[in-house]
Protein backbone atom coordinates (compact mmCIF):
# COMPACT_ATOMS: atom_id res chain seq x y z
CA UNK A 1 0.00 0.00 0.00
CA UNK A 2 2.67 2.49 1.03
CA UNK A 3 5.59 3.42 -1.18
CA UNK A 4 7.94 3.50 1.75
CA UNK A 5 8.53 1.30 4.74
CA UNK A 6 7.44 2.75 8.05
CA UNK A 7 8.85 1.80 11.44
CA UNK A 8 7.19 3.19 14.56
CA UNK A 9 9.67 4.82 16.92
CA UNK A 10 8.29 3.46 20.20
CA UNK A 11 8.67 -0.13 21.26
CA UNK A 12 4.93 -0.55 21.89
CA UNK A 13 4.16 1.09 18.54
CA UNK A 14 6.38 -1.42 16.79
CA UNK A 15 4.81 -4.33 18.73
CA UNK A 16 1.30 -3.15 17.82
CA UNK A 17 2.13 -2.32 14.21
CA UNK A 18 3.61 -5.77 13.62
CA UNK A 19 0.25 -7.25 14.65
CA UNK A 20 -2.10 -4.68 13.08
CA UNK A 21 -0.40 -2.18 10.76
CA UNK A 22 -2.67 0.75 11.63
CA UNK A 23 0.30 3.03 12.20
CA UNK A 24 1.65 2.18 8.74
CA UNK A 25 -1.74 3.13 7.33
CA UNK A 26 -1.74 6.43 9.21
CA UNK A 27 1.77 7.12 7.98
CA UNK A 28 0.73 6.32 4.42
CA UNK A 29 -2.16 8.77 4.68
CA UNK A 30 -0.18 11.63 6.23
CA UNK A 31 2.87 11.37 3.99
CA UNK A 32 0.87 10.59 0.86
CA UNK A 33 2.51 12.44 -2.07
CA UNK A 34 -0.12 14.77 -3.59
CA UNK A 35 0.27 16.92 -6.72
CA UNK A 36 1.25 20.37 -5.55
CA UNK A 37 -0.97 22.22 -8.03
CA UNK A 38 -4.33 20.98 -6.69
CA UNK A 39 -6.75 23.89 -6.66
CA UNK A 40 -9.79 24.48 -4.45
CA UNK A 41 -12.02 22.31 -6.66
CA UNK A 42 -10.05 19.40 -5.21
CA UNK A 43 -11.17 20.17 -1.65
CA UNK A 44 -14.67 18.78 -2.15
CA UNK A 45 -13.65 15.19 -1.46
CA UNK A 46 -12.89 16.20 2.12
CA UNK A 47 -16.02 18.34 2.27
CA UNK A 48 -18.11 15.36 1.15
CA UNK A 49 -16.61 13.18 3.88
CA UNK A 50 -17.61 15.86 6.36
CA UNK A 51 -21.16 15.91 4.90
CA UNK A 52 -21.48 12.14 5.21
CA UNK A 53 -20.36 12.14 8.84
CA UNK A 54 -22.67 15.07 9.63
CA UNK A 55 -25.63 13.20 8.14
CA UNK A 56 -24.78 10.02 10.05
CA UNK A 57 -24.38 11.80 13.41
CA UNK A 58 -27.49 14.01 13.08
CA UNK A 59 -29.47 11.10 11.62
CA UNK A 60 -28.54 8.88 14.54
CA UNK A 61 -29.74 11.47 17.05
CA UNK A 62 -32.97 12.13 15.12
CA UNK A 63 -33.69 8.39 15.09
CA UNK A 64 -33.73 8.49 18.91
CA UNK A 65 -36.89 10.64 18.75
CA UNK A 66 -38.53 9.79 15.43
CA UNK A 67 -41.34 7.21 15.25
CA UNK A 68 -41.63 5.31 11.99
CA UNK A 69 -45.39 4.80 11.90
CA UNK A 70 -47.90 6.28 9.46
CA UNK A 71 -50.08 7.57 12.32
CA UNK A 72 -47.24 9.02 14.38
CA UNK A 73 -44.38 9.98 12.04
CA UNK A 74 -45.66 13.46 11.21
CA UNK A 75 -46.31 14.32 14.83
CA UNK A 76 -43.02 12.88 16.00
CA UNK A 77 -41.21 15.21 13.59
CA UNK A 78 -43.14 18.18 15.02
CA UNK A 79 -42.26 16.84 18.48
CA UNK A 80 -38.59 16.93 17.48
CA UNK A 81 -39.01 20.50 16.23
CA UNK A 82 -40.84 21.81 19.30
CA UNK A 83 -40.09 19.66 22.34
CA UNK A 84 -36.78 17.87 21.96
CA UNK A 85 -33.80 19.89 23.23
CA UNK A 86 -32.09 21.37 20.18
CA UNK A 87 -34.29 19.09 18.05
CA UNK A 88 -34.96 21.95 15.64
CA UNK A 89 -31.23 22.45 15.17
CA UNK A 90 -30.46 18.79 14.61
CA UNK A 91 -33.32 18.37 12.16
CA UNK A 92 -32.48 21.52 10.21
CA UNK A 93 -28.83 20.44 9.97
CA UNK A 94 -29.94 17.01 8.72
CA UNK A 95 -32.46 18.37 6.19
CA UNK A 96 -30.19 21.11 4.84
CA UNK A 97 -27.23 18.76 5.17
CA UNK A 98 -28.76 16.63 2.42
CA UNK A 99 -28.85 19.66 0.13
CA UNK A 100 -25.29 20.63 1.06
CA UNK A 101 -24.19 17.05 0.40
CA UNK A 102 -25.62 17.21 -3.12
CA UNK A 103 -24.24 20.69 -3.73
CA UNK A 104 -20.77 19.36 -2.88
CA UNK A 105 -21.20 16.15 -4.89
CA UNK A 106 -22.25 18.07 -8.00
CA UNK A 107 -19.19 20.31 -7.75
CA UNK A 108 -17.06 17.18 -7.19
CA UNK A 109 -18.56 15.46 -10.27
CA UNK A 110 -18.25 18.51 -12.51
CA UNK A 111 -14.64 18.95 -11.36
CA UNK A 112 -14.01 15.40 -12.60
CA UNK A 113 -15.68 16.23 -15.89
CA UNK A 114 -13.57 19.35 -16.41
CA UNK A 115 -10.20 17.85 -15.52
CA UNK A 116 -10.88 14.37 -16.97
CA UNK A 117 -10.39 12.66 -13.63
CA UNK A 118 -12.55 9.73 -14.77
CA UNK A 119 -10.05 8.69 -17.47
CA UNK A 120 -7.59 5.82 -17.37
CA UNK A 121 -6.29 4.72 -14.90
CA UNK A 122 -9.06 6.13 -12.64
CA UNK A 123 -12.17 4.43 -14.12
CA UNK A 124 -12.86 2.34 -11.02
CA UNK A 125 -12.68 5.38 -8.73
CA UNK A 126 -15.19 7.05 -11.05
CA UNK A 127 -17.60 4.10 -11.18
CA UNK A 128 -17.54 3.68 -7.38
CA UNK A 129 -18.32 7.40 -7.25
CA UNK A 130 -21.35 6.94 -9.51
CA UNK A 131 -22.60 4.09 -7.28
CA UNK A 132 -22.19 6.36 -4.24
CA UNK A 133 -24.14 9.05 -6.08
CA UNK A 134 -26.97 6.59 -6.86
CA UNK A 135 -27.09 5.49 -3.21
CA UNK A 136 -27.14 9.13 -2.14
CA UNK A 137 -30.20 9.72 -4.29
CA UNK A 138 -31.92 6.64 -2.83
CA UNK A 139 -31.09 7.73 0.73
CA UNK A 140 -32.25 11.31 0.10
CA UNK A 141 -35.51 10.15 -1.47
CA UNK A 142 -36.33 7.76 1.38
CA UNK A 143 -35.32 10.33 3.97
CA UNK A 144 -37.70 12.83 2.42
CA UNK A 145 -40.55 10.31 2.86
CA UNK A 146 -40.01 9.92 6.62
CA UNK A 147 -41.71 13.15 7.85
CA UNK A 148 -44.88 11.78 6.20
CA UNK A 149 -46.05 15.11 4.84
CA UNK A 150 -47.92 15.62 1.58
CA UNK A 151 -44.75 15.88 -0.53
CA UNK A 152 -43.32 12.84 1.28
CA UNK A 153 -46.37 10.75 0.48
CA UNK A 154 -46.88 11.86 -3.11
CA UNK A 155 -43.18 11.93 -3.90
CA UNK A 156 -43.01 8.33 -2.68
CA UNK A 157 -46.08 7.45 -4.76
CA UNK A 158 -44.69 8.97 -7.96
CA UNK A 159 -41.17 7.57 -7.60
CA UNK A 160 -42.26 4.03 -6.66
CA UNK A 161 -44.72 4.10 -9.56
CA UNK A 162 -41.76 4.54 -11.91
CA UNK A 163 -41.22 0.79 -11.49
CA UNK A 164 -44.73 0.09 -12.80
CA UNK A 165 -43.41 1.09 -16.22
CA UNK A 166 -41.52 -2.22 -16.40
CA UNK A 167 -43.53 -4.54 -18.68
CA UNK A 168 -45.24 -7.61 -17.13
CA UNK A 169 -43.65 -7.60 -13.65
CA UNK A 170 -43.90 -3.84 -13.01
CA UNK A 171 -47.15 -3.87 -11.02
CA UNK A 172 -45.95 -6.80 -8.92
CA UNK A 173 -42.71 -5.00 -8.10
CA UNK A 174 -44.58 -1.85 -7.04
CA UNK A 175 -46.87 -3.85 -4.73
CA UNK A 176 -43.80 -5.55 -3.30
CA UNK A 177 -42.07 -2.21 -2.71
CA UNK A 178 -45.19 -0.83 -1.00
CA UNK A 179 -46.03 -3.94 1.02
CA UNK A 180 -49.65 -3.18 0.15
CA UNK A 181 -51.79 -1.64 -2.55
CA UNK A 182 -50.66 1.92 -1.95
CA UNK A 183 -47.94 3.81 -0.09
CA UNK A 184 -48.78 3.16 3.56
CA UNK A 185 -47.34 2.15 6.91
CA UNK A 186 -45.39 -0.89 5.61
CA UNK A 187 -43.76 1.40 3.03
CA UNK A 188 -42.77 3.90 5.71
CA UNK A 189 -41.17 1.35 8.04
CA UNK A 190 -39.10 -0.24 5.28
CA UNK A 191 -38.00 3.15 3.96
CA UNK A 192 -36.83 4.06 7.46
CA UNK A 193 -34.84 0.84 7.69
CA UNK A 194 -33.19 1.39 4.31
CA UNK A 195 -32.59 5.08 4.99
CA UNK A 196 -30.70 4.02 8.11
CA UNK A 197 -28.70 1.38 6.25
CA UNK A 198 -27.61 3.26 3.11
CA UNK A 199 -25.26 5.82 4.75
CA UNK A 200 -23.18 2.95 6.09
CA UNK A 201 -23.05 1.36 2.64
CA UNK A 202 -21.89 4.73 1.34
CA UNK A 203 -19.25 4.89 4.08
CA UNK A 204 -17.90 1.51 2.95
CA UNK A 205 -17.84 2.63 -0.67
CA UNK A 206 -16.07 5.86 0.31
CA UNK A 207 -13.28 3.71 1.79
CA UNK A 208 -13.03 1.84 -1.53
CA UNK A 209 -13.21 5.15 -3.44
CA UNK A 210 -10.22 6.50 -1.48
CA UNK A 211 -8.36 3.19 -1.65
CA UNK A 212 -8.76 3.14 -5.43
CA UNK A 213 -7.65 6.79 -5.50
CA UNK A 214 -4.46 5.98 -3.63
CA UNK A 215 -3.34 3.48 -6.27
CA UNK A 216 -2.69 5.97 -9.11
CA UNK A 217 -2.85 9.07 -6.88
CA UNK A 218 -4.75 12.30 -7.47
CA UNK A 219 -5.34 13.70 -10.91
CA UNK A 220 -4.44 17.41 -11.06
CA UNK A 221 -5.42 20.56 -12.97
CA UNK A 222 -2.77 19.92 -15.64
CA UNK A 223 -4.03 16.34 -16.00
CA UNK A 224 -0.64 14.72 -16.55
CA UNK A 225 0.78 11.70 -14.74
CA UNK A 226 2.90 12.77 -11.82
CA UNK A 227 5.82 10.81 -10.49
CA UNK A 228 5.38 10.35 -6.78
CA UNK A 229 7.08 11.39 -4.69
CA UNK A 230 8.90 14.03 -6.74
CA UNK A 231 9.32 17.79 -6.96
CA UNK A 232 5.78 17.85 -8.34
CA UNK A 233 4.25 16.54 -5.10
CA UNK A 234 3.82 17.63 -1.50
CA UNK A 235 2.94 15.41 1.48
CA UNK A 236 -0.79 15.24 2.22
CA UNK A 237 -0.13 16.47 5.74
CA UNK A 238 0.11 19.35 6.43
CA UNK A 239 -0.21 20.89 2.95
CA UNK A 240 -3.47 19.39 1.72
CA UNK A 241 -4.95 18.97 5.20
CA UNK A 242 -4.72 22.70 5.90
CA UNK A 243 -6.07 23.64 2.46
CA UNK A 244 -9.00 21.21 2.84
CA UNK A 245 -9.71 22.55 6.32
CA UNK A 246 -9.83 26.13 5.09
CA UNK A 247 -12.20 25.18 2.23
CA UNK A 248 -14.33 23.20 4.67
CA UNK A 249 -14.67 26.24 6.93
CA UNK A 250 -15.82 28.36 3.95
CA UNK A 251 -18.29 25.62 3.07
CA UNK A 252 -19.59 25.49 6.64
CA UNK A 253 -20.37 29.21 6.47
CA UNK A 254 -22.72 28.54 3.53
CA UNK A 255 -24.13 25.51 5.36
CA UNK A 256 -24.74 27.53 8.54
CA UNK A 257 -26.38 30.31 6.53
CA UNK A 258 -29.05 27.89 5.33
CA UNK A 259 -29.50 26.22 8.72
CA UNK A 260 -29.82 29.43 10.74
CA UNK A 261 -31.27 31.99 8.33
CA UNK A 262 -33.44 30.18 5.80
CA UNK A 263 -33.82 26.56 6.94
CA UNK A 264 -36.94 25.86 4.87
CA UNK A 265 -36.09 27.57 1.59
CA UNK A 266 -34.89 24.34 -0.03
CA UNK A 267 -37.96 22.37 1.10
CA UNK A 268 -41.64 22.57 0.19
CA UNK A 269 -44.33 24.17 2.32
CA UNK A 270 -46.65 21.30 1.37
CA UNK A 271 -44.55 18.94 3.46
CA UNK A 272 -45.82 20.63 6.62
CA UNK A 273 -49.28 19.24 5.78
CA UNK A 274 -49.77 15.67 6.97
CA UNK A 275 -49.94 12.98 4.25
CA UNK A 276 -53.42 12.54 2.75
CA UNK A 277 -53.95 9.71 0.27
CA UNK A 278 -57.08 11.38 -1.13
CA UNK A 279 -55.56 14.70 -2.20
CA UNK A 280 -52.60 15.20 -4.48
CA UNK A 281 -50.80 18.55 -4.10
CA UNK A 282 -51.35 20.77 -7.13
CA UNK A 283 -47.71 20.75 -8.10
CA UNK A 284 -45.46 17.84 -7.20
CA UNK A 285 -41.77 18.60 -7.46
CA UNK A 286 -38.83 16.64 -6.12
CA UNK A 287 -36.03 18.25 -4.15
CA UNK A 288 -33.83 20.59 -6.20
CA UNK A 289 -31.00 18.09 -6.61
CA UNK A 290 -33.20 15.66 -8.55
CA UNK A 291 -34.83 18.27 -10.82
CA UNK A 292 -32.69 17.76 -13.96
CA UNK A 293 -33.58 14.08 -14.02
CA UNK A 294 -37.22 14.85 -13.30
CA UNK A 295 -37.21 17.20 -16.32
CA UNK A 296 -35.85 14.38 -18.49
CA UNK A 297 -38.55 12.01 -17.20
CA UNK A 298 -41.33 14.45 -18.06
CA UNK A 299 -39.94 15.48 -21.43
CA UNK A 300 -40.67 12.03 -22.89
CA UNK A 301 -44.41 11.55 -23.63
CA UNK A 302 -44.26 7.76 -23.18
CA UNK A 303 -44.20 6.34 -19.63
CA UNK A 304 -41.72 3.48 -20.13
CA UNK A 305 -39.43 5.48 -22.41
CA UNK A 306 -39.50 8.39 -19.96
CA UNK A 307 -38.30 6.14 -17.16
CA UNK A 308 -35.64 4.61 -19.40
CA UNK A 309 -34.43 8.08 -20.45
CA UNK A 310 -34.18 9.21 -16.84
CA UNK A 311 -32.22 6.15 -15.71
CA UNK A 312 -29.98 6.31 -18.78
CA UNK A 313 -29.14 9.93 -18.00
CA UNK A 314 -27.55 8.74 -14.75
CA UNK A 315 -26.11 5.42 -15.91
CA UNK A 316 -24.51 6.95 -19.00
CA UNK A 317 -22.07 8.60 -16.60
CA UNK A 318 -20.68 5.17 -15.69
CA UNK A 319 -19.72 4.65 -19.36
CA UNK A 320 -18.06 8.05 -19.58
CA UNK A 321 -14.44 6.80 -19.38
CA UNK A 322 -15.07 4.91 -22.62
CA UNK A 323 -17.33 7.45 -24.32
CA UNK A 324 -14.69 10.16 -24.02
CA UNK A 325 -12.10 9.05 -26.55
CA UNK A 326 -9.58 11.82 -25.88
CA UNK A 327 -6.31 10.81 -24.25
CA UNK A 328 -5.81 14.32 -22.87
CA UNK A 329 -7.37 14.59 -19.42
CA UNK A 330 -7.56 18.27 -18.54
CA UNK A 331 -9.91 20.64 -20.39
CA UNK A 332 -7.14 23.23 -20.03
CA UNK A 333 -5.51 21.64 -23.08
CA UNK A 334 -8.76 20.89 -24.96
CA UNK A 335 -10.06 24.20 -26.35
CA UNK A 336 -13.18 22.69 -27.95
CA UNK A 337 -14.04 20.36 -25.09
CA UNK A 338 -13.79 23.29 -22.70
CA UNK A 339 -16.59 25.04 -24.60
CA UNK A 340 -18.78 21.94 -24.78
CA UNK A 341 -18.17 21.41 -21.06
CA UNK A 342 -19.67 24.79 -20.23
CA UNK A 343 -22.58 24.16 -22.61
CA UNK A 344 -23.25 20.91 -20.70
CA UNK A 345 -23.16 22.79 -17.37
CA UNK A 346 -25.68 25.29 -18.77
CA UNK A 347 -27.78 22.43 -20.19
CA UNK A 348 -28.00 20.70 -16.79
CA UNK A 349 -28.89 23.99 -15.07
CA UNK A 350 -31.63 24.61 -17.66
CA UNK A 351 -32.95 21.08 -17.11
CA UNK A 352 -33.02 21.78 -13.39
CA UNK A 353 -34.97 24.98 -13.95
CA UNK A 354 -37.61 23.50 -16.27
CA UNK A 355 -37.87 20.48 -13.94
CA UNK A 356 -39.26 22.84 -11.31
CA UNK A 357 -41.77 24.38 -13.75
CA UNK A 358 -45.05 22.85 -14.97
CA UNK A 359 -44.55 20.43 -17.88
CA UNK A 360 -46.38 22.42 -20.54
CA UNK A 361 -45.91 24.91 -23.37
CA UNK A 362 -42.49 26.50 -23.72
CA UNK A 363 -41.11 24.75 -20.62
CA UNK A 364 -41.83 21.36 -22.16
CA UNK A 365 -40.21 22.37 -25.44
CA UNK A 366 -37.09 23.64 -23.65
CA UNK A 367 -36.97 20.44 -21.56
CA UNK A 368 -37.08 18.32 -24.72
CA UNK A 369 -34.31 20.24 -26.46
CA UNK A 370 -32.14 20.18 -23.30
CA UNK A 371 -32.75 16.43 -22.84
CA UNK A 372 -31.76 15.74 -26.45
CA UNK A 373 -28.64 17.84 -26.01
CA UNK A 374 -27.69 16.02 -22.80
CA UNK A 375 -27.57 12.69 -24.60
CA UNK A 376 -25.98 14.24 -27.68
CA UNK A 377 -23.13 15.49 -25.50
CA UNK A 378 -22.27 12.05 -24.14
CA UNK A 379 -23.14 9.84 -27.10
CA UNK A 380 -21.97 11.93 -30.06
CA UNK A 381 -19.96 15.00 -29.11
CA UNK A 382 -17.53 13.33 -26.66
CA UNK A 383 -16.61 10.30 -28.84
CA UNK A 384 -16.16 12.43 -31.97
CA UNK A 385 -14.37 15.27 -30.22
CA UNK A 386 -11.67 12.95 -28.87
CA UNK A 387 -10.80 11.91 -32.42
CA UNK A 388 -11.08 15.30 -34.17
CA UNK A 389 -10.01 17.89 -31.65
CA UNK A 390 -6.62 19.58 -32.00
CA UNK A 391 -5.36 19.73 -28.44
CA UNK A 392 -2.76 22.08 -27.01
CA UNK A 393 0.68 20.71 -26.11
CA UNK A 394 0.80 19.38 -22.56
CA UNK A 395 3.73 20.13 -20.25
CA UNK A 396 6.07 17.38 -19.13
CA UNK A 397 5.68 18.16 -15.44
CA UNK A 398 3.70 20.38 -13.12
CA UNK A 399 6.76 22.39 -12.18
CA UNK A 400 7.90 23.03 -15.73
CA UNK A 401 5.30 25.53 -17.02
CA UNK A 402 5.43 27.44 -13.74
CA UNK A 403 9.20 27.79 -13.73
CA UNK A 404 9.54 28.13 -17.47
CA UNK A 405 6.45 30.31 -17.82
CA UNK A 406 5.23 28.34 -20.83
CA UNK A 407 3.26 25.21 -21.52
CA UNK A 408 5.05 24.71 -24.80
CA UNK A 409 6.38 21.21 -25.27
CA UNK A 410 9.63 22.13 -27.04
CA UNK A 411 10.67 24.73 -24.49
CA UNK A 412 9.65 22.36 -21.73
CA UNK A 413 11.92 19.69 -23.20
CA UNK A 414 14.82 22.12 -23.50
CA UNK A 415 14.40 23.26 -19.93
CA UNK A 416 14.19 19.67 -18.78
CA UNK A 417 17.51 18.83 -20.42
CA UNK A 418 19.21 22.02 -19.26
CA UNK A 419 18.22 21.26 -15.66
CA UNK A 420 19.91 17.90 -16.00
Amino acid at each position, binding site marked *: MSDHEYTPSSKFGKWFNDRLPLLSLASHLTDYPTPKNLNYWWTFGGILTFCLITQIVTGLTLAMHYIAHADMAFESVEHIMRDVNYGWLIRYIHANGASMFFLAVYIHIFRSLFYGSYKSPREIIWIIGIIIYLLMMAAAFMGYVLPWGQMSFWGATVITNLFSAIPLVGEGIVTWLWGG*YSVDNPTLTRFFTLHYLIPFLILGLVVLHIWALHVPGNNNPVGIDVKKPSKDTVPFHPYIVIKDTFALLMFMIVFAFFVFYTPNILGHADNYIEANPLVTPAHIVPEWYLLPFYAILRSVPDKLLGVIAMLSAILILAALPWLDTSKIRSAVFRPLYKQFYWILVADVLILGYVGAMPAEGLYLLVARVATAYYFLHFLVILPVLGLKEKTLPIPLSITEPILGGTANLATARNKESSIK
Partner: protein
Amino acid sequence: MSEKKTNRRDFLFTATYAVGAVGVGATVWPMIDQMNPDASVKALASTEVDVSSVNRGKTITVLWRGKPVFIRRRTEDEIADARSVKLEDLKDPEKDEDRAKNPEWLVMLGVCTHLGCVPLNDKGDYNGWFCPCHGSHYDTSGRIRKGPAPTNMEVPKYEFVNANTIKIG
Protein backbone atom coordinates in the same frame (compact mmCIF):
# COMPACT_ATOMS: atom_id res chain seq x y z
CA MET B 1 -13.70 -31.15 -24.38
CA SER B 2 -15.03 -34.47 -25.58
CA GLU B 3 -11.97 -36.48 -24.47
CA LYS B 4 -12.18 -35.02 -20.94
CA LYS B 5 -14.00 -37.64 -18.95
CA THR B 6 -16.57 -36.58 -16.42
CA ASN B 7 -15.41 -38.03 -13.15
CA ARG B 8 -16.75 -38.43 -9.63
CA ARG B 9 -15.32 -35.09 -8.51
CA ASP B 10 -17.16 -33.15 -11.25
CA PHE B 11 -20.37 -34.80 -10.17
CA LEU B 12 -19.71 -33.87 -6.55
CA PHE B 13 -18.98 -30.23 -7.45
CA THR B 14 -22.12 -29.89 -9.56
CA ALA B 15 -24.26 -31.57 -6.91
CA THR B 16 -22.79 -29.32 -4.19
CA TYR B 17 -23.42 -26.16 -6.20
CA ALA B 18 -26.98 -27.27 -7.00
CA VAL B 19 -27.84 -28.08 -3.37
CA GLY B 20 -26.14 -24.87 -2.26
CA ALA B 21 -28.13 -22.80 -4.75
CA VAL B 22 -31.42 -24.34 -3.63
CA GLY B 23 -30.47 -23.73 0.00
CA VAL B 24 -29.56 -20.09 -0.62
CA GLY B 25 -32.77 -19.60 -2.63
CA ALA B 26 -34.92 -21.14 0.09
CA THR B 27 -33.27 -18.90 2.69
CA VAL B 28 -33.47 -15.70 0.66
CA TRP B 29 -37.08 -16.09 -0.48
CA PRO B 30 -38.69 -15.48 2.95
CA MET B 31 -36.55 -12.33 3.25
CA ILE B 32 -37.94 -11.08 -0.07
CA ASP B 33 -41.52 -12.26 0.36
CA GLN B 34 -41.89 -10.62 3.78
CA MET B 35 -42.07 -7.32 1.89
CA ASN B 36 -45.22 -8.35 -0.02
CA PRO B 37 -48.68 -7.33 1.31
CA ASP B 38 -49.26 -9.13 4.62
CA ALA B 39 -52.39 -10.95 5.79
CA SER B 40 -53.82 -7.89 7.56
CA VAL B 41 -53.47 -5.75 4.44
CA LYS B 42 -55.06 -8.44 2.27
CA ALA B 43 -57.94 -8.82 4.75
CA LEU B 44 -59.13 -5.27 3.96
CA ALA B 45 -59.92 -6.29 0.41
CA SER B 46 -63.55 -5.08 0.09
CA THR B 47 -65.57 -2.00 1.04
CA GLU B 48 -69.32 -1.25 0.92
CA VAL B 49 -70.39 2.28 0.03
CA ASP B 50 -73.80 3.91 0.46
CA VAL B 51 -74.41 6.05 -2.64
CA SER B 52 -78.01 7.16 -1.96
CA SER B 53 -76.97 10.76 -1.24
CA VAL B 54 -74.97 11.23 -4.46
CA ASN B 55 -76.73 13.59 -6.89
CA ARG B 56 -76.38 13.61 -10.64
CA GLY B 57 -73.16 15.28 -11.80
CA LYS B 58 -71.47 14.70 -8.46
CA THR B 59 -68.51 12.51 -7.54
CA ILE B 60 -67.65 11.00 -4.20
CA THR B 61 -64.25 9.63 -3.32
CA VAL B 62 -63.89 6.66 -1.02
CA LEU B 63 -60.81 4.87 0.21
CA TRP B 64 -60.34 1.26 -0.85
CA ARG B 65 -57.10 -0.59 -0.12
CA GLY B 66 -55.48 2.76 0.69
CA LYS B 67 -56.38 4.11 -2.73
CA PRO B 68 -59.07 6.63 -3.68
CA VAL B 69 -62.03 5.29 -5.67
CA PHE B 70 -64.15 7.75 -7.67
CA ILE B 71 -67.88 7.06 -7.76
CA ARG B 72 -69.55 9.45 -10.17
CA ARG B 73 -73.23 9.70 -10.91
CA ARG B 74 -73.07 10.93 -14.47
CA THR B 75 -75.45 13.34 -16.23
CA GLU B 76 -77.16 12.42 -19.50
CA ASP B 77 -74.78 14.76 -21.36
CA GLU B 78 -71.75 13.09 -19.92
CA ILE B 79 -73.03 9.64 -20.79
CA ALA B 80 -73.85 10.74 -24.33
CA ASP B 81 -70.43 12.35 -24.56
CA ALA B 82 -68.65 9.22 -23.42
CA ARG B 83 -70.62 6.91 -25.69
CA SER B 84 -70.26 9.00 -28.84
CA VAL B 85 -66.44 8.83 -28.92
CA LYS B 86 -65.00 6.74 -31.74
CA LEU B 87 -62.75 3.93 -30.52
CA GLU B 88 -60.00 4.86 -32.98
CA ASP B 89 -59.64 8.25 -31.24
CA LEU B 90 -58.63 6.53 -28.02
CA LYS B 91 -55.11 5.78 -26.83
CA ASP B 92 -56.40 2.79 -24.85
CA PRO B 93 -59.55 1.76 -26.76
CA GLU B 94 -62.35 0.69 -24.42
CA LYS B 95 -66.12 1.13 -24.89
CA ASP B 96 -67.91 3.23 -22.29
CA GLU B 97 -70.49 0.42 -22.14
CA ASP B 98 -67.78 -1.91 -20.84
CA ARG B 99 -66.53 0.58 -18.26
CA ALA B 100 -69.92 1.57 -16.83
CA LYS B 101 -72.37 -1.33 -16.88
CA ASN B 102 -74.98 0.94 -15.36
CA PRO B 103 -74.37 4.10 -17.46
CA GLU B 104 -75.40 6.41 -14.65
CA TRP B 105 -72.65 5.17 -12.36
CA LEU B 106 -68.96 5.31 -13.15
CA VAL B 107 -66.80 3.54 -10.56
CA MET B 108 -63.05 3.61 -11.00
CA LEU B 109 -59.75 3.92 -9.13
CA GLY B 110 -58.94 7.61 -8.76
CA VAL B 111 -55.33 6.91 -9.55
CA CYS B 112 -53.60 8.34 -12.59
CA THR B 113 -52.08 5.46 -14.54
CA HIS B 114 -48.98 7.51 -15.20
CA LEU B 115 -47.34 7.77 -11.78
CA GLY B 116 -50.18 7.37 -9.32
CA CYS B 117 -51.39 10.88 -8.47
CA VAL B 118 -55.07 11.60 -7.80
CA PRO B 119 -56.67 13.38 -10.82
CA LEU B 120 -58.99 16.35 -10.23
CA ASN B 121 -62.74 16.18 -10.97
CA ASP B 122 -64.44 18.24 -13.69
CA LYS B 123 -61.16 19.42 -15.11
CA GLY B 124 -59.15 19.06 -18.27
CA ASP B 125 -59.82 19.33 -21.99
CA TYR B 126 -62.41 16.52 -22.02
CA ASN B 127 -64.57 17.63 -19.06
CA GLY B 128 -63.60 14.56 -17.12
CA TRP B 129 -60.47 14.44 -14.98
CA PHE B 130 -57.12 16.13 -15.10
CA CYS B 131 -53.98 14.97 -13.34
CA PRO B 132 -52.02 17.94 -11.97
CA CYS B 133 -48.76 16.07 -11.66
CA HIS B 134 -47.80 15.51 -15.28
CA GLY B 135 -50.80 16.77 -17.23
CA SER B 136 -52.88 13.72 -18.23
CA HIS B 137 -56.43 14.46 -19.44
CA TYR B 138 -59.23 11.90 -18.97
CA ASP B 139 -62.73 11.99 -20.49
CA THR B 140 -66.14 11.51 -18.83
CA SER B 141 -65.55 7.77 -18.93
CA GLY B 142 -62.14 8.07 -17.23
CA ARG B 143 -60.34 7.16 -20.44
CA ILE B 144 -56.94 8.66 -21.20
CA ARG B 145 -57.18 11.20 -24.03
CA LYS B 146 -54.08 13.35 -23.76
CA GLY B 147 -50.84 13.32 -21.78
CA PRO B 148 -48.29 10.77 -20.58
CA ALA B 149 -50.58 8.21 -18.87
CA PRO B 150 -50.54 4.95 -20.85
CA THR B 151 -53.96 3.51 -19.95
CA ASN B 152 -57.47 4.44 -18.81
CA MET B 153 -58.19 4.77 -15.12
CA GLU B 154 -58.76 1.25 -13.81
CA VAL B 155 -62.27 -0.01 -13.13
CA PRO B 156 -62.13 -2.23 -10.03
CA LYS B 157 -64.31 -5.26 -9.43
CA TYR B 158 -67.56 -3.96 -7.95
CA GLU B 159 -71.27 -4.78 -7.73
CA PHE B 160 -74.53 -3.21 -6.62
CA VAL B 161 -75.56 -5.03 -3.46
CA ASN B 162 -78.89 -3.16 -3.68
CA ALA B 163 -80.03 0.06 -5.40
CA ASN B 164 -78.17 2.26 -2.91
CA THR B 165 -75.08 0.26 -2.02
CA ILE B 166 -71.97 -0.52 -4.03
CA LYS B 167 -69.53 -3.18 -2.90
CA ILE B 168 -65.99 -2.60 -4.16
CA GLY B 169 -63.54 -5.51 -4.23
